[in-house]
């Protein structure tokens, strides 16, 4: 091949790649970047613009990370619950994809809850872990949705996978009210709710505003990650369809 031929082949390949890239969203999109900026802003606000609690010191600020992660895990599994019911009712693949995406992101938030909680517990309670009702039930929630993700990977047939995982997704989400009420129902070390309770939140306004800001930043994280995961799910389905069509054509 002569030098002009090589150049022409490179140009052709480059043009094909550009054409392909035009029709496809970037690997990291604007939503993920916006979510990352919002989280960094929430960290900065929590660290430098919010007073430290008098007895716990800086460890109390773990709360601005731990509670939004817990609330977003509730949100994520709540979405799994609703979309799984919708799937079983209408057999709409989009509902199954949202459930799949939300469950995976909810598992991430639960992992954050289960790691930041003990890091707060060590200096405040004197122990990393205790088999307290809320902690134990949250760990069970993690196991259920880890099982959900494994189950989805283990069933190759899409309709059967969607049906089985919808049932597990619904049953797993039923644990959430028990987790939230566990501090009232059982003798527990975990602090009582100071925001999500029947009367007014018992936090000073500057702490409450930081908490709200952080919660909204993590809602944005939830939305951006579910959106990216949903897109991955669509592309996987497209690849599977194409693969099946090629197999059929042989």
């Amino acid at each position: 091949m002569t030098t002009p031929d090589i150049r022409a082949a490179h140009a052709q390949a480059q043009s094909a790649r550009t054409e392909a890239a035009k029709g496809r969203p970037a690997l990291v999109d604007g939503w993920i970047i916006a979510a990352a900026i919002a989280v960094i802003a929430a960290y900065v606000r929590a660290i430098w613009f919010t007073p430290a609690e008098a007895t716990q010191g800086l460890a109390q600020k773990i709360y601005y990370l731990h509670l939004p992660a817990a609330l977003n895990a509730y949100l994520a599994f709540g979405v799994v619950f609703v979309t799984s019911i919708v799937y079983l009712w209408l057999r709409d693949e989009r509902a199954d994809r949202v459930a799949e995406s939300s469950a995976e992101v909810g598992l991430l938030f639960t992992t954050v809850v289960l790691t930041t909680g003990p890091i707060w517990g060590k200096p405040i309670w004197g122990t990393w872990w205790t088999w307290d009702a809320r902690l134990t039930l949250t760990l069970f929630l993690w196991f259920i949705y880890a099982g959900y993700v494994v189950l989805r990977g283990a069933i190759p047939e899409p309709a059967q996978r969607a049906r089985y995982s919808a049932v597990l997704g619904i049953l797993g989400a039923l644990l959430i009210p028990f987790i939230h009420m566990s501090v009232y129902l059982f003798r527990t070390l975990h602090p009582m709710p100071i925001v999500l309770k029947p009367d007014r939140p018992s936090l000073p306004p500057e702490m409450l505003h930081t908490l709200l800001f952080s919660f909204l930043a993590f809602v944005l994280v939830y939305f951006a990650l579910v959106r990216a995961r949903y897109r991955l799910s669509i592309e996987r389905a497209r690849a599977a369809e194409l693969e099946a069509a090629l197999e059929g054509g042989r």
Partner: protein
Amino acid sequence: MAQTAGYFHAAYIVAGVLYVLYTASLVVRRRRVLERLDELQRGAER
């Protein structure tokens, strides 16, 4: 006030690492699927 700054920083670092790792896993999985799609499309065109 208790000296708990180390725990505070550790919690934020651990959470940050978890979020970044998950985002990276999404990017890697998506790149693999897109490569597979390209491969299949080339196969279909042949």
